[in-house]
């Protein structure tokens, strides 16, 4: 059995889920605050890029997205090019996610392979087999950056486009992880090879230094066809997975990685300190 196909005569990928967007149906991540930021979740069938540097929790967020999807009746596939299955099973178990059990129930599939096999995606490919077996609604590729090892820089966009198109035509909402060295400044360049325009949604994970400690910020940079929260929100990797908290309201320059308090907030702090009898810093 295959995933939902476009109706005869339908043109464009947005026809894959007729009426779903209009009815307000979204692909929920299951992380309440993130779904709020996305105004309910991702658009069905969208290709989402999850960009961030190492240690930012891309894999954790992606796994949580799949596990939550399974609990909502949406099977998922996790394709990894870097970690071995046992390692992923173990790490997921630490968050309370039993991936082996989900696999036994045919609601989840973990594929540990080489990027070259993904590039060969076709009717008899490894990926196509898995798509037929569990009819996923969600799929994660960890990470798209690994394709760079097998594809020339000039061909990267074409290959990425082919993979995204392949998944879209099978009605799968994909999440593509991208190892980005820097997402900062005015350019907001997420990838060096110009993949940003190929995807429908970009979520950036960014480390920020505040008061000599590294904290994590999350922002929805792009979301085609939907409004979304534009603010940077702090998040943390807890024992239950990703926890998104309040926006960073009092800081400027978060995208540079070295934010500072906004001028007004700084002035307000100076104002209090000027009058306070006890000069103990408090904010």
């Amino acid at each position, binding site marked *: 059995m295959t995933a939902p196909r476009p109706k005869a005569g339908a043109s464009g990928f947005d026809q894959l889920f007729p009426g779903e967007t209009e009815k307000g149906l979204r692909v929920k991540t299951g992380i309440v605050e993130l779904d709020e930021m996305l105004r309910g979740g991702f658009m069905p069938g969208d290709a989402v890029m999850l960009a961030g540097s190492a240690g930012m929790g891309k894999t954790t967020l992606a796994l949580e997205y799949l596990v939550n999807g399974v609990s909502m009746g949406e099977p998922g596939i996790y394709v990894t090019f870097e970690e071995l299955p046992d390692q992923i099973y173990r790490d997921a178990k630490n968050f309370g996610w039993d991936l082996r059990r989900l696999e036994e129930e045919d609601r989840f599939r973990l594929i540990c392979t080489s990027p070259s096999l993904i590039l060969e995606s076709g009717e008899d490919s490894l990926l196509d087999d898995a798509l037929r077996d569990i009819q996923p609604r969600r799929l994660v590729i960890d990470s798209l950056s690994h394709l760079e090892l097998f594809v020339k820089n000039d061909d990267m966009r074409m290959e990425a486009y082919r993979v995204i198109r392949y998944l879209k035509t099978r009605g799968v909402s994909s999440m593509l992880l991208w190892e980005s060295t820097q997402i900062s400044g005015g350019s907001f360049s997420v990838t060096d090879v110009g993949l940003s325009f190929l995807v429908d949604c970009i979520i950036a994970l960014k480390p920020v230094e505040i008061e000599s400690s590294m904290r994590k910020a999350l922002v929805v940079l792009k979301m085609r066809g939907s409004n979304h929260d534009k603010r940077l929100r702090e998040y943390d990797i807890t024992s239950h997975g990703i926890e998104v908290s309040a926006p960073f309201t*009092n800081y400027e320059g978060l995208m540079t990685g070295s934010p500072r308090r906004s*001028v*007004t*907030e*700084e*002035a*307000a*702090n*100076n*104002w*209090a*300190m*000027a*009058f*306070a*009898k*006890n*000069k*103990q810093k*408090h*904010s």
Partner: protein
Amino acid sequence: MPRTNRNIPEPNPVGRVGQTAGTLPPTWKPSIVVAAPLPLVIVSVAVFNLILPPPAQFNKGLAFEPPYLNAILYTIFLALTSFIVAYISFKSYVQNGWTFLVLLGSGALAWGTTSLIAGWLTNLPTGPNPAITISNTGALVASIFHVVSSTWSRGPSTQKSAKIRRSILIFAYGGVLGFIALYAIVALEGMTPAFFVPGVGQTVLRMVVLGSAAALFAVASILFARRYFSSQSRSSTLYWYFLALGLTGVGLAAVFFGRAPGDPISWTGRTAMFLGGTYFLKAVHTAFKGTSVR
């Protein structure tokens, strides 16, 4: 020259560890010149008091009161500057939770709002009494808030969330504005006792209210000055603020001794208050600059 790794000065081996000439903030020194208007106003009022005839024999030709000039000056120098102080106190309280900031902001808001209303009501056909009533009462309310703020010794309320602090401030500022609006209506309806009788001069009630306001502003100024001089890290913000309060107090006292609205003593007082407004603004400016301690 741009600071690079090459030209950042090496720490001085003698003296305080970790502080170099290149990293220390510029030293701020209090300027005595900016404090000079205080005694100058006092002397000017004393001289005018000796020179000018008493109210009964006062020649109106000596008064200068063009319509709307006062309103414009009150709006710019008293109302706007006070609103800026109220705003930064608002932000500061939400962020830091020091209760004295609520009082400081409420005082500034009362002073600014009553100055704004009074400035534009001066030229009413029924006479200046409602404007003077509102202005003087507002000055008294503001001075009380400032004195309480300057004596408030309790620390910040850390348990209250920013949301609760915001609600407290909205309630406090709303209360001040509500009271002033109500009082203004009552004064315009002629339901308050007279503060000023044209051709006769100020009433005893006005003398008490205005005198108290002037004295309390002076007290608040002295208390903040004490805090400034007893502090290790003398803040330029506090310096400008206590001078502003002092000038406001002296200005109100000058108005107290005035023969008629627009006479030389009144203008001396008004000038002091306008200068006080400028100093309030300067205090806020130093907070924005962030190099306010020495």
